[in-house]
């Protein structure tokens, strides 16, 4: 009998993803659900999907979910977690959701040290609405609302979420990863596992930022999109662990 070595995670529903070819959401969904399966937390997990491309995440995650209004995921997740402190609660957010309209909710949930996990999909663009500037759009990057490229005088600078939030004492864990190669995918999965563990151990707010390709709105092929993350985007948003209270050393912010 041939041995099955790759299959659909149990915590993913049998629906067809609506995500574009080459989009990072599918990989992120898969990695999160693999960890949910492997750690046996499906029955006690409650997820909070955002407004944005992942708005239909409840069609894919086979865990209890409540869709948040745009940007309010961390507030909604805080409410759930405070009522049900023994459940695993995560919010899944894009860059506009977390760093623009929901920056206050994200910042203060982090600062309160809410014992929740936030998965932050950073693709430097507003995907669902058609490719407008995101708070994480990098300088010179062309979007439909920065047709001449993001200009620092007109549009300000890309918001660095891990750098910003890891300064808050309520944050127990913050790591930035990507999904551009099998090695990076494995690192991202480890980060997701660690973030959930952090929550299980009641250490506080955990954040996993994933630099994620958006071939459709970047107008690049999936392979070129991965290359752009590795060569350009990750220069602006360096990968690494920004905060890790699970290891009591001063060597945080080291590259992974």
């Amino acid at each position: 009998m041939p041995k099955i070595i790759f299959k659909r995670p149990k915590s993913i529903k049998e629906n067809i993803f609506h995500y574009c070819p080459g989009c990072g959401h599918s990989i992120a969904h898969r990695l999160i659900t693999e960890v949910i399966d492997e750690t046996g937390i499906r029955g006690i997990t409650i997820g909070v999907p955002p407004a944005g491309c992942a708005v239909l995440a409840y069609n894919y995650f086979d865990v209890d979910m409540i869709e948040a209004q745009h940007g309010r995921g961390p507030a909604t997740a805080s409410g759930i977690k405070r009522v049900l402190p023994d459940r695993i609660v995560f919010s899944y957010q894009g860059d506009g959701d977390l760093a623009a309209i929901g920056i206050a909710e994200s910042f203060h949930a982090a600062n309160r040290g809410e014992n929740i996990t936030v998965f932050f999909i950073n693709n430097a663009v507003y995907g669902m609405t058609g490719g407008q500037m995101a708070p994480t759009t990098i300088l010179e990057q062309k979007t439909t609302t920065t047709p001449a490229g993001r200009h620092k005088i007109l549009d300000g600078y890309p918001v660095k979420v891990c750098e910003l939030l890891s300064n808050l004492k309520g944050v127990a864990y913050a790591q930035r990863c990507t999904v551009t190669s099998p090695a990076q995918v494995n690192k991202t999965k480890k980060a997701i596992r660690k973030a959930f563990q952090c929550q299980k151990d009641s250490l506080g707010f955990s954040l996993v930022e994933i630099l994620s390709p958006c071939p459709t709105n970047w107008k690049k092929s999936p392979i070129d999109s991965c290359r752009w993350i590795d060569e350009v985007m990750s220069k602006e948003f360096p990968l690494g662990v920004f905060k890790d209270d699970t290891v009591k050393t001063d060597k945080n912010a080291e590259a992974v």
Partner: protein
Amino acid sequence: MNKVLMSGNDIIGEAAIRAGCRFYAGYPITPQNELTEYMAEHMRNADGGVFIQSESEVAAIHMVIGASSAGARVMTSSSSPGISLKQEGISSMAACELPGVIVNIMRGGPGLGNIRPSQGDYFQATRGGGHGDYRTIVLAPATCQELADLTMDAFDLADKYRTPVMILADGMMGQMMEPVVFKKTRPRRFSEKFMLRGAGDGPSRFIRGLLLDPIDAEEHNWKLARKYEVIVKNETLRDEHDTEDAEMVIVAYGTAARIARGAIKRLREHGMKVGLFRPVTLWPFPESELRALSNKVKSFLVFEMSTGQMIDDVRLALQGYADTGFHGRPGGAVPTPAELANVIARHYKKD
């Protein structure tokens, strides 16, 4: 149960906790700060009670949404400008059919206005307030005793219809002190099946307001509309004073109705047959009850602490069968009963 002397804002807090409210999130704003502070102090001693001072009114309502979905009895409170900020979440609660109580201790507006008592938020409260095709049950207490009773009822109504319920009072109601007796609470009747608690070994569930298919969304809107029809049929409340022999009836709610009662007392002493019709639920509005009154009364005067909002509902209810006058004091101005009595007397004599 003992009679206790408490201020309006504290009464709401105490009634909520007695009714089983175990999650409160709010952001300070005058004139309702005593309520937020009451919840901070007393939620600590309530079994499983959670209090969060949120970063904004927006965050507060979304925390309440999360806690409600997780199965807690929930409340948030604010005053006019803060209630505007909560509308995104209130619309979402209506869409997702999540129970919860929202307290609006109204102040002068529009904009930042002032911190004096006002009734300028009637339209916002009774027309849904946020975007989309929905209604919010709106309860308008006029005494401290009613603040206690209606706050408790609000939680039951929210559960019964799985919908947000608003307590609409004003700074005067929030700050005044009166003796109250807290009534016995009923055990909560709310099915576990509407709570997100983690799927366990069973199928997962989700709560959403997004319905991309217009036919699904239309069906959902009609479903809500049918629910609102049942609420209109079953939950309309009003109060009448001195209407039996009245030749003229004042229509007023909340603080304005208190002032009107004072004015009517004076007028009755002078032989003027004036009565009071007081909607207790502003939505649903006691339309047929008011219309029934127009069989014998041909002159109505609406008094509001606004430029005239409820008067629209009064006219819709009366359908032109009676004359409708109006007196308003917007922007935080509060007339004395004597001032109002003079206004009513002028209208009375004109008729």
